[in-house]
């Protein structure tokens, strides 16, 4: 009787191992990341990410292949405002990240109806600071909450879109929705940036940035996420929006050919 129970336990353990191994295949192995474009962030993240070698390949502490960047393509990133009044700062940060993801391809910006009544529509006059021009931006305005998730998923599934930005109230998002977005993003290799006011929900994200406005032309940005493991330097930066690398060309690991490949 004892032996039977032990055998059953062994079988269960083996099954569990097999299941874990098969799930491991689905865990995203990000092999493409880009820099944020802010010199302090990129410098700190590049220096302090612990690396170790296995079979001649470098891996970072979180299991990803180590590169200089943090923002992974084909993933879901969140930009959260520190308080509801920091939403414009979060919008600006998201616009900057979107322009770096998309480079020259179209960016789809989706705003839910509640978001529009709370903090308004993005305005072209202010967006020009982030190198987004009117030709590139496709704006989904005042989408009802019931259609918001559908719209984001449709936009994310199209490989000819550069980047998708979704601004909504956090109650609209759930763990299941973000996991779905992650899978869609991975399949089409395009990124989603979610912009929300402060919230306590757990979402499946690759990186989470908290932004607060700090006076004229300054932001306080904090990074949360897997990359925190093993970091010793503070993951909080005070950025000047004039730090945006205006003069240097945007470099990405892959050339722009990956969009059209």
């Amino acid at each position, binding site marked *: 009787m004892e032996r039977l129970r032990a055998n059953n336990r062994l079988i269960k353990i083996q099954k569990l191992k097999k299941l874990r191994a098969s799930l491991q295949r689905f865990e995203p192995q990000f092999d493409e990341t880009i820099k944020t474009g802010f010199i302090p962030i990129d410098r700190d993240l590049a220096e302090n990410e612990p690396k170790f070698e296995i079979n001649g390949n470098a891996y970072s502490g979180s299991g990803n292949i180590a590169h200089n960047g943090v923002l992974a393509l084909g993933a879901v990133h969140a930009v959260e405002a520190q308080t509801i009044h920091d939403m414009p700062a979060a919008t600006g940060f998201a616009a900057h990240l979107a322009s770096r993801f998309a480079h020259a391809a179209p960016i789809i910006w989706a705003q839910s109806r509640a978001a529009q009544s709370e903090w308004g529509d993005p305005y072209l*006059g202010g967006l020009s600071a982030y190198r987004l021009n009117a030709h590139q931006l496709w704006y989904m305005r005042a989408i009802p909450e019931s259609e918001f998730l559908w719209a984001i998923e449709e936009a994310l599934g199209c490989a000819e879109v550069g980047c998708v930005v979704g601004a909504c109230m956090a109650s609209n998002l759930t763990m299941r929705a973000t996991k779905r977005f992650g899978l869609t993003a991975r399949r089409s290799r395009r990124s989603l940036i979610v912009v929300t006011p402060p919230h306590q929900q757990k979402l499946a994200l690759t990186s989470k940035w908290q932004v607060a406005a700090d006076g004229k032309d300054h932001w306080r940005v904090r990074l949360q996420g897997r990359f925190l493991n093993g970091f010793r330097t503070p993951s909080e930066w005070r950025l000047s929006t004039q730090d945006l690398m205006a003069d240097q060309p945007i470099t990405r690991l892959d050339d722009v050919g990956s969009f059209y490949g």
Partner: protein
Amino acid sequence: MDKLLSRRILVLSFPNWVTDISAPRVKQGKPFGVYAPAQAGLKLVAVNEPAKEIGLCAGMSVVDARALVPELELQELDTHLIQRSYALCARWASRFTPWVGFDTVPGHYSLVMDISGCAHLFGGERALVEIITNILSRRMISVRAAIANTIGAAWALSHYGAYEHIVLPVGCEYEALLPLPVAALRLPAASLDLCARFGLRQIENVAGIERSALTRRFGKVIVQRLDQAFGQLSEAVNPVVEPPQFRVQNTPLHPLIDMSQVVHYLNDMTAALSNLLSKEGRGAKRLDITLIRTDKARLSFSISMSQPSDLTSHMARLIDDRIERLNLSLDGAYGIDTLWLDAPRTAPMDMGQSHFERIISQSAPKIGYAFSALCDRLVGRLGATHFVRLSPHEDHVPERAVIYQTIFDHRPIKNVDAHTPQTRPILLLPQAEVIDVIAEIPEGAPRRFRWRRRLYEIASASGPERISPSWWRTAYGLDVGYTRDYFRLEDREGHRFWLYRDGLYTDETHRPHWYMHGFFA
């Protein structure tokens, strides 16, 4: 000759169309007239029967009519409503026959329908006339109907015949038409004048004159009309609703009562339509879906596409999304027994770079089909006004400096010299919100303000930036805004606001209001 004789034409004439449509609720028996502005004041365009009996007629001035009949009810002429209901009536009449045409004589409202071969479906010609006139009189529309072999004869009898419903047997045109007045021949006004001057009052006077003499005096028209009326010259009905070239029709064996069944049938029909389109090398730019219930009520909607497409999957997906958004529910008592899917607007598939492609190629060098398919899906489900592009516009007023352009709007997006991002916010509220402000009069920046029930203390301010409404708009009354003074404020916690004072003190208004308009990053 035989073919002509076997045609049967039904003409419905509406002697009081304008008054019937303009005010169906006017009590019977009360005089009522429709007026429109004319050169010398307001003139009556049409009057109803009781008013005609009293002595009013079209063309009278309203002042005179009011003097004659003080209790006359009047309404302004709404040409749009008249035309629209006329078109709707023609569409309704097409349930009896697809060949429904409008009248070509100005000033008369009537429908010409070719009912050869379909009268037996409604129980015979008399029964058909009964049905039509019953339905129309229930809608308080007075109608006279006549069936004859030729358009000319039917028209004449319907407008000038002795009875309200006339069904003329084959071969009796001569006896029926001769006693009618000459105007029944649909002649132009000049010819009618001439006839009156010569004393030719009835058709029998005209029909007796030799052909060459008629042509010499009156021209070809009168001879043509005579021949058309008596059947020697053929005349075709110009159908109003042309059946589209690309149409797929499906009639299921049992009426459908479930939306999912409808969707299933529509998907099959999409495949058939796609075959039709690709055979001709064309793509659909618009899809019209019509569902016809067993009680002949119609449900129709249309989907526009940004680029011509003949792909089954794309069209089927658009239709599914639209049906889901419309959230239709079918009445269980009446199922759907006919489905139509047609493509009224098509374009050749291998056209060069289409306009839409040119628009997108401004943003990226190589955009393929997937992006326009995505646009179609998003617009189809959310609506065209919810998927827009931001287009800068030359205007000082900030909320008009950016206009939202739908994807069907083909105006190019201009590169307007924008303000520096230092002076313009990143977020703009759709409606500026009123706030309470403590500020120095007359032109000081705010020290403190209350917005959305919270108090904000200002640490620093810059401005004012004065934006006046465009003088060319205020001069014509298009704008009633005041001059705005915009301030960029920063509060103690580092958040930055963009608000304005609406109006200058003492110059424009005594109590200008303050509004919150936007936020800086």
